[in-house]
């Protein structure tokens, strides 16, 4: 065949433009744009920004304006926190930020959930690309845009953003946005984060960025549609107003700067802040040792069933480049909600640096901009458009921990540190999500702020703090449960009491978590759900010889009304999960344990649901722990004397807790010898331990060992290539159970003559 005849004619530039115009004009659906969604770096410096920097680049002026914009953001943040109706708003699950005219986040509020604003640049860039020049939409002074669909750039669609453009003399100079974890969004379960979602259509309201405000007024028709789509219509209205007014306050602060210093000074400040942070991050990375660090974190459930889901992380630093390679992580689940879009993972990795490694840097998009991320397509950390992701936090948080664990191993030898080397922080949202009809007749759906009470990891020089802060916000509150109880028909009968022996031991131990026991009281239409992993496998790794946390189940007591018990026989009540479950003090009650993925369950008055917040990881060899600190842990109810003596090899008087230091040192020396005796050399160990494939008794997802190109999909003989997507369906857990029971009936010959 003649080669010439098969080669298509190369179109001319004119023809190419015509083709592009044709395609643009006939686009049937403006879905998430991969060009926007896969890129987290800063947009190129524009000519306008360049000219502005040519006029204003004095460091003092830039610092002055940056501080003013920063305090404007903080003011907006305070407004949302004080006035917001969502429980999340009251505890700081909120953020405000100022974005460049091209859409990059330049400055965010000092408090709040940075990951929110680190993702809002995506919807802003969507608005710039698609709505700015569209005659049916347009972007004008006084406009406001709403957005929540994570596929266009968000953590999950329970977070809603209000985005407004800022104009000066008719020219766009920047954007302002405010984001809140709202809770309700009309999904198949109340509270905004359904773990039962099997497709994006189960996840409730899916707002691509659209205009909802004109002339600074919320459009009532659209508002009514949104209210009609969620379970908390009043909350929807109130928080849209609150976010809009917070944005307008920040706008006012920006206008003050525009009037005093001019638009060039503002635009130069935003651009230079980002460029300087980006350059400083490159410099700091270059101080790390050139090295590859490997880590993995296991998710032990999809929230529907227990299985083994790997988050694989290889972190490589060469010169001033830092590359997170998450290839080998689990394939996406086609019908489970624990997938995340890759932007969510990146936003959370940015928090590793801005919250735990370089908290001195201005909070914005630039700190993560030069860091590279590699993932497999259609994987649990880079899921497709068609995969549900309402429980993306599971993969975002375990991805964060893999990153935090790997980063710590680079930092130890760095001469210049900005924080202490830090073991992983607890990473699961062990809290109650709740919903139904309240004692006041209101339909509600939201959660207890106890998710913010994650235990901190130990550091190189001290113990982790208890119930400190969520990994996604270092300065969030756990709220006032008593205030909450005025609105909701349940009580936390035990709250903020440390869960004894749920420990992460080490030379420095992890900060511990506390017990929560809830029981519905004043509603027949009220229920709970829990959405966390880690009831079979800890979701952390320890650092430098320290241990991770243990595991955390859900315990239930049914067929009891504890309010009757408290009224009639209060002496029967116990104040720890340990005592209630082991002593079973309520006669004829039903006591059971479960993994932490409880789908929404209606509760009866006085039934107990009991969980614990988790501990951060430990640091260093536990035999080096100061005996006095061990005794302090016993006195504070963190660890029982028996467990302390057995693990830490500390010898003390059982009655007085007086330490016998000589005996302790001898016991520790003996334990070091015992370790040497019971351990085997590495080469010998791996001969017996290493297996070529995942064990058949586990449903295992992700790569095995060094072969990151092969992803297992639930069994040793079902795989896909990392770069070649395949569907990955899970059976309904009830169907699995029915099949098990039918097999047993069949084996017992008890199926009768049922026709098939």
């Amino acid at each position, binding site marked *: 065949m003649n080669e010439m005849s098969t080669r298509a004619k190369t179109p001319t530039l004119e023809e190419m433009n015509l083709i592009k115009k044709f395609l643009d004009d006939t686009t049937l659906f403006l879905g998430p744009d991969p060009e926007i969604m896969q890129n987290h770096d800063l947009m190129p410096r524009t000519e306008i920004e360049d000219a502005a920097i040519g006029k204003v680049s004095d460091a003092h002026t830039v610092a002055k304006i940056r501080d003013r914009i920063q305090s404007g953001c903080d003011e907006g943040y305070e407004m949302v926190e004080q006035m917001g109706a969502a429980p999340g708003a009251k505890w700081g699950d909120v953020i405000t930020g100022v974005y460049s005219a091209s859409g990059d986040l330049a400055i965010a509020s000092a408090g709040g959930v940075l990951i929110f604003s680190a993702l809002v640049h995506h919807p802003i860039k969507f608005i710039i690309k698609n709505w700015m020049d569209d005659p049916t939409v347009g972007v004008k002074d006084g406009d406001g845009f709403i957005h929540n669909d994570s596929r266009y750039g968000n953590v999950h669609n329970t977070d809603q953003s209000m985005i407004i453009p800022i104009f000066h003399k008719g020219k766009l100079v920047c954007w302002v946005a405010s984001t809140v974890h709202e809770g309700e969004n009309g999904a198949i379960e109340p509270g905004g984060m359904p773990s039962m979602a099997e497709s994006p259509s189960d996840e409730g309201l899916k707002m691509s960025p659209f205009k909802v405000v004109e002339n600074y007024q919320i459009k009532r028709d659209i508002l009514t549609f949104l209210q009609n789509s969620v379970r908390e219509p009043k909350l929807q209205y109130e928080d849209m107003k609150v976010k809009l007014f917070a944005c307008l306050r920040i706008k006012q602060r920006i206008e003050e700067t525009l009037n005093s210093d001019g638009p060039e000074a503002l635009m130069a400040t935003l651009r230079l802040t980002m460029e300087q942070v980006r350059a400083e991050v490159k410099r700091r990375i270059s101080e790390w*040792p*050139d*090295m*590859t660090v*490997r*880590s993995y974190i296991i998710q*032990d459930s999809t929230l529907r069933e227990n299985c083994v889901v790997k988050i694989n992380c290889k972190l490589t630093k*060469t010169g001033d480049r830092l590359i997170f390679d998450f290839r080998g992580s689990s394939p996406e689940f086609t019908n489970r909600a624990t997938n995340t879009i890759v932007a969510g993972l990146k936003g959370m990795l940015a928090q590793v640096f801005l919250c735990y490694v370089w908290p001195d840097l201005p909070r914005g998009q630039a700190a993560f901009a030069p860091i590279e991320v590699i993932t497999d397509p259609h994987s649990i950390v880079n899921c497709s458009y068609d995969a549900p992701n309402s429980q993306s936090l599971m993969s975002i948080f375990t991805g964060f921990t893999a990153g935090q664990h790997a980063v710590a*191993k680079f930092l*130890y*030898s760095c*001469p210049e*540190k900005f924080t202490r080397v830090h073991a992983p922080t607890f990473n699961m949202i062990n809290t109650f999500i709740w919903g139904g009809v309240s004692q006041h007749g209101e339909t509600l759906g939201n959660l207890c702020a106890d998710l913010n009470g994650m235990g901190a990891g130990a550091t*190189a020089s001290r113990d982790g703090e208890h119930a400190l802060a969520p990994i996604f916000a270092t300065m969030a509150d756990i709220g006032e449960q008593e205030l909450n109880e005025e609105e909701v028909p349940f009580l936390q009968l035990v709250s903020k009491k440390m*869960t004894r022996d*749920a*420990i992460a*031991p080490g*030379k420095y131990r992890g900060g511990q978590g506390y017990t929560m026991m809830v029981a519905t009281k004043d509603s027949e239409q009220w229920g709970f759900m829990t959405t966390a992993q880690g009831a*079979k*496998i*800890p979701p*952390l*790794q*320890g650092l*430098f*010889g320290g*241990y*991770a*946390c*243990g*595991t955390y*189940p*859900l*315990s239930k007591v049914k067929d009891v009304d504890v309010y009757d018990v408290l009224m009639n026989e209060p002496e029967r009540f116990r104040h720890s999960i340990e005592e209630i*479950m*082991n002593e079973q003090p309520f006669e004829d009650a039903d006591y*059971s*344990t479960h993994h932490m993925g409880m789908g929404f369950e209606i509760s009866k008055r006085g039934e107990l649901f009991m969980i*614990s917040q988790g501990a951060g990881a430990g640091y260093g*060899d536990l*035999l*080096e722990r100061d005996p006095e600190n061990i005794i302090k842990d016993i006195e504070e109810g963190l660890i029982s004397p028996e467990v302390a003596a057995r693990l830490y090899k500390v010898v003390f008087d059982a009655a007085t807790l007086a330490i016998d*230091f000589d005996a302790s*040192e001898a016991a520790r020396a003996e334990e*070091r010898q*015992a*370790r*040497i005796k019971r*351990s085997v*050399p*590495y080469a010998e*160990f*791996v001969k017996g331990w290493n*297996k070529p494939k995942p*064990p058949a*008794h*586990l449903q295992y997802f992700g790569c*095995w060992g*060094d072969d990151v190109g092969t992803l297992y999909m639930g069994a040793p003989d079902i795989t896909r290539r990392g770069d070649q997507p395949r569907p990955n369906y899970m059976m309904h857990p009830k169907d699995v159970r029915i099949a098990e029971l039918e097999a047993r009936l069949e084996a017992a010959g008890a199926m009768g003559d049922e026709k098939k």
Partner: protein
Amino acid sequence: MKIPMTEYLRIDLETEKWECRVCDHVIAPAGGNYKEGLLVHNRDPREIHPPIIDPDKYRFTFSPDPEWVRILEFCCPSCGTQVETEYAIPGHPPLWDMQVDVAALKAQWAARGPAALPDAGPVVMPERGHSH
């Protein structure tokens, strides 16, 4: 120059070896996996994270499931210090967690000089109770 790389490990740039910071034991070549010079113990996770509720009565007890996860404990063969732990799926090959570019490390520290070494020295057990 000896560079402290973790709480218990350092790299001697001259000999290009991983060493124990507690007892000075030479563990493995610096360009390789330090775990190869350590001892390993396959720990039942229930021993470290004790059941809080009765394992005879309940499926979930606050203890990790030993069929699902094990703790690999790596210790120095000379002094018994626990250098690293790894929570591992049964049979999963242990990770080569720190793969160092030794030539780059040497160049980096040649430029820096020993004055920049981080000051966290080896751990010493506090002496107490003997103030006769």
